[in-house]
């Protein structure tokens, strides 16, 4: 994945500043650019409150996809008596996302700083950094960074690297906790979301790697600095992976509130934008005519899309959106954990209906059956995986309505034969 020099386009460079300025990822370069870690002095009783206050005032929300206010998770775990575990979620199961891998490769110390700061504030006994088991490269980068920190006498809570199964749903919080505890890493049914996560009875605080990197900067520069980028209701910056019909795919740091089209322009679209898949494969399509929409949760929702995790998949006007969505829907069906009937059976059925339509083998009845299945599957799994697939497909039916009108008359389109655009891993 190419990482482009964002300074050319006047977007702020925050998370990757050390890499941009020095071309290095080591501790010395990290300190030279970001300054020392603002750790708590021994017996500084006010440190936890100061850190939580800074995170609260920054308005930071989670960068793993749910967009939950970060301070609330910190407050919830601070109320728990037993000393917790800090979990760095870098599983990044979204095929089109590589921002967390980029962070761990180019600026691991910023992520580890964030984990250490949070760990100090909540009295964590341990920090677990979770990466996909097949990513030897990330394990190497992390190992090197941790060795540097150990040599420098940094950190109180020990940090371990956990290499876990890296399926699509593996990064879901309860699946992650399950994997860490030695289980298969499938999501759990939780009666209420409020129920705290635990790994072998130890309370666990799970944060996306990028969220922790932001905390590391907020702790140094303050909430006002964080809010000096972005918009009042969506403050700060975020990493976005741009892929698809673009000449410069890669990870870009952008101010929240930037129009989606402006973000895509940085990656240089290869042809006029037909539509953009926003938020990941469980996200929603945004029509090409709506690319002026600001990149914020509220504005995207109002436009019928969703922010989700920082992913923009660009397709051109000549692409068949129905065919692309059918491929992604098939992938999502294959990534069901297989625990809940509506997801296990419903997602493949939905994918088959969509494939039939894309091939020109479907008609109005196919479409009606598809819509009925979408309605019946949503909300009936233990996790949000089926909901994401439903959201994706519903948005395709809306945004690609013209293509669809063509397909329901038993006609495929020229777009079907084109090379597939959105990255879909070979199924296992």
């Amino acid at each position, binding site marked *: 994945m190419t990482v482009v020099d964002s300074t050319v386009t006047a977007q702020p460079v925050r998370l990757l500043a050390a890499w941009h300025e020095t071309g290095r990822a080591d501790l010395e370069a990290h300190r030279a650019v970001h300054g020392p870690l603002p750790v708590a002095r021994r017996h500084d009783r006010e440190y936890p409150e100061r850190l939580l206050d800074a995170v609260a005032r920054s308005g930071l929300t989670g960068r793993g996809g749910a967009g939950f206010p970060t301070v609330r998770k910190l407050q919830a775990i601070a109320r728990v008596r037993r000393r917790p575990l800090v979990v760095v979620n870098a599983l990044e199961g979204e095929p089109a996302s590589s921002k967390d891998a980029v962070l761990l490769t180019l600026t691991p110390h910023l992520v580890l700083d964030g984990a250490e700061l949070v760990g100090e504030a909540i009295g964590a006994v341990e920090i677990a950094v979770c990466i996909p088991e097949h990513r030897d490269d990330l394990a190497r980068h992390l190992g090197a960074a941790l060795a540097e920190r150990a040599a420098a006498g940094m950190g109180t809570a020990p940090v371990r690297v956990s290499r876990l199964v890296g399926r699509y749903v593996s990064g879901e919080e309860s699946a992650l906790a399950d994997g860490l505890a030695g289980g298969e890493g499938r999501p759990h*049914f*939780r009666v209420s979301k409020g129920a705290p996560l635990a790994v072998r009875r130890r309370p666990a605080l799970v944060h996306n790697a990028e969220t922790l990197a932001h905390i590391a900067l907020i702790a140094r520069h303050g909430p006002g600095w964080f809010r000096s980028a972005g918009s009042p209701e969506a403050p700060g910056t975020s990493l976005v992976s741009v892929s698809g019909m673009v000449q410069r795919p890669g990870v870009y740091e952008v101010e929240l509130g930037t129009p989606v089209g402006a973000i895509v322009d940085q990656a240089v679209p290869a042809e006029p934008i037909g539509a953009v898949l926003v938020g990941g494969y469980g996200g929603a399509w945004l029509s090409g005519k709506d690319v002026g929409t600001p990149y914020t949760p509220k504005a995207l929702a109002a436009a019928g899309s969703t922010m989700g995790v920082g992913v923009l998949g660009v397709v051109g006007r000549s692409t068949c959106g129905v065919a692309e969505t059918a491929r992604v829907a098939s992938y999502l069906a294959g990534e069901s954990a297989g625990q809940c009937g509506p*997801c296990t*059976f419903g997602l493949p059925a939905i994918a088959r209906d969509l494939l039939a339509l894309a091939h020109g083998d479907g008609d109005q009845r196919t479409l009606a059956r598809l819509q009925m299945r979408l309605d*019946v599957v949503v909300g*009936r799994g*233990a996790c*949000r995986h089926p909901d994401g697939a439903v959201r994706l497909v519903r948005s395709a039916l809306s945004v690609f309505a013209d293509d669809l009108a063509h397909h329901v008359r038993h006609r495929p389109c020229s777009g079907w034969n084109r090379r597939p655009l959105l990255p879909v891993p070979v199924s296992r």
Partner: protein
Amino acid sequence: MQRRPERQAPSPGRHEMRLRVNPVACDAFGYCAELIPELITLDEWGYPVVDEDPVPAHLRGLALRALRDCPRRALLLDTSAARGSPR
């Protein structure tokens, strides 16, 4: 099977119970839909679609029986306030 149409949820009272299914535990035996078809129907794959409104008083006995009879103990009675949006 059709999903039940959305209805205005009443404000939670002291003795309200809502039926819920643990979808991981459920193995589509279908006993629950047999016992309380008023509240539980089966989708095309045999899995329960559960009415999320409070269980009416006259069906509570059957609801409790469905909980006991489920071979996977997949049915729950939720006495907390209205669920609102899914987790």
